[in-house]
């Protein structure tokens, strides 16, 4: 199964131009443009600056989580627990700060505790995967239940509201006319893209995804690197929680349910092989932008939120089908 999935970038006999055109990112980008054009034609509210910026606000949480998810999937792993980490971080942020709760920390301290907790949750995933050797799918399936359970247990289904005004700047405010959280996302996109494509760490992730044993024999500390990316994934889920709470002004224990599926969908749609070894941040960015614009455009065109989910599922399967088809054609040629 694994062998068929690696797009081999080097193809003898085909011109560099067709190579570029057949990259998943490019195909996706063309789909993206097509989708934008169609949606713009169907609703005049779609292609407006304010709408686009507002969509940026809405996609930030998925985007932040999808970036480390790209790292993880490239190494051949997966992290299903991101949505639950977001949930427990959001709950703990409120719980630590809650003026009528047991801790009553300053909000700044509560945010730091929440981010630290997110990192810790990811670190636990990484340690179990690396040191005990439990496959990532199972480990994070277990911690998905565990972390969501902690969120539910700590909150006892009570939400925390009434945050001070400054706290909402991140989730609802603007800087230079652009939603604040979009700056955060852009910052992390650039950082992760550079790490993945230009550093030893990034190169090592591809090596791990293609042949972990070979990577170890080459002196790459594979265990350490894997722990780092899972911890990073936890940290980013914590960031997403912070932004989420700031955006919706409350904490609930079901926050982020299903986020893992959106993030994985974005990554896979962006051309990262679910078996590891290939993929890019650019692809992931196009992936989550495409998903968000589809959601938005369809809802403007009068399709219900649930109807858009159907479209996204279909797009995901179709994109992979088309990509597989093209890969096979070019490999056979």
């Amino acid at each position: 199964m694994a062998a068929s999935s690696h797009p081999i970038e080097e193809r003898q006999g085909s011109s560099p131009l067709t190579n570029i055109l057949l990259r998943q990112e490019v195909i996706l980008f063309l789909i993206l443009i097509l989708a934008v054009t169609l949606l713009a034609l169907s609703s005049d509210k779609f292609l407006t600056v304010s709408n686009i910026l507002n969509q940026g606000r809405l996609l930030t949480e998925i985007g932040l989580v999808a970036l480390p998810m790209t790292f993880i999937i490239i190494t051949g792993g997966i992290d299903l627990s991101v949505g639950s980490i977001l949930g427990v971080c959001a709950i703990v942020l409120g719980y630590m700060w809650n003026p009528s709760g047991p801790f009553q920390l300053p909000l700044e301290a509560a945010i730091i505790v929440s981010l630290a907790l997110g990192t810790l949750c990811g670190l636990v995933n990484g340690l179990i995967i690396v040191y005990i050797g439990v496959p990532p799918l199972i480990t994070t399936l277990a911690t998905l239940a565990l972390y969501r359970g902690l969120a539910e247990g700590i909150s006892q289904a009570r939400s925390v509201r009434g945050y001070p005004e400054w706290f909402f700047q991140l989730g609802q405010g603007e800087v230079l006319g652009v939603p604040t959280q979009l700056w955060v996302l852009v910052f992390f996109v650039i950082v992760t893209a550079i790490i993945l494509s230009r550093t030893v760490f990034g190169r090592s992730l591809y090596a791990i995804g293609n042949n972990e044993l070979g990577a170890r024999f080459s002196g790459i500390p594979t265990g350490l690197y894997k722990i780092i990316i899972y911890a990073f994934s936890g940290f980013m889920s914590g960031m997403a929680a912070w932004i989420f709470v700031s955006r919706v002004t409350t904490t609930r224990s079901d926050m982020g349910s299903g986020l893992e599926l959106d993030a994985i969908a974005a990554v896979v749609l962006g051309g990262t092989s679910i078996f590891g070894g290939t993929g890019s941040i650019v692809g992931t960015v196009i992936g989550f932008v495409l998903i968000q614009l589809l959601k938005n455009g369809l809802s403007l065109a009068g399709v219900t939120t649930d109807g858009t989910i159907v479209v996204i599922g279909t797009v995901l399967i179709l994109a992979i089908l088309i990509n597989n088809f093209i890969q096979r054609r070019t490999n056979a040629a």
Partner: protein
Amino acid sequence: MTATAKPVPTPARRDDTGNFVSRLISIVSSQEIILLFVLIALLASVGSANPRYVAERNFINIFNGNAYIAVAAIGMTMVIISRNIDISVGSLIGVLGTISGTLAINGSPIWVSWLVPILVGALVGAAIGFMVAYLRIPSIVVTLGLLSILKGGLITVTSGEWITDLPEGFFLAQMKTPAFSILGLSIPAIPSPIIIMFVLTLIAVLWMRYSQTGRAIYAVGGNAEAARLSGISEKRILMTVFILNGVFVGIAAVLWATQLSIIQSTVPPGLELQIITAAVVGGVSILGGVGTAFGAMIAAILLSAINSALVFIDISPYWFRAVVGILILVTVLADMLRRRRTAAASGD
């Protein structure tokens, strides 16, 4: 420990009765035994703290409550053994349950409203199988997409309206055997889901153990390349696995839809996770290749028992999922340690 953990090293034993016993033991391999032990320990300890926990009524509820999960977990067990995953089962159960209810209130014969979901389940399974086996899309991606399609599609079509006024004979899950007594033992009324769960599990265990195709699932999961070279059609096996999974999901959906007097026509949240949990905790090897539906059934009952126990020992049910998470981790860790010891003992 049982025979699987310590392979008999000598060739001396040749009597077939001995082999039969060891085979019998290996059917109920150690993971299942451990689970059964945990289940009994839980029932005993919580029961001694609060006798109402093991009173007949609650006892039957524990077995009954998760029967549909156990049935769905049979299919999931096969899927995982073949080294695949299906995360769309929860959504599919929601959709098939709604189909069942809709048929029933629109005047279809009861048996039609029970049968159609199973057939549709098989069809959806065939579609997944086709995409996985023939189009070579990883099952996690296929079922991820399908999950969205089913979930969104269901609410779009039904607008989340509840189905009520279901006809009298529709409630399969509420039917019971008559209570009777034999030789002074009084046998209580047993709800049909428990019987269906036991019978299906038994059939599945026997089929996976004794049929050519059943064994081939293990082969495909254990060494797909080898299976291909030795002439087993991986594609056909994968199709079979996903179609069967669809059938079990269909039956589970009927049990789910017929247990309450209303059908919510939405997707039960986190249901796929409970089913996968039952299969994994039940001893489907996380590394592919091992596992029986029997373990999945016990695991499903265990989850139900834990949920119920929280109520009886007065812990907030909001902690249920945390307990489940810890349970999966602990079983998986135990499995890893057991494997490591086995590997060390066999010297490889």
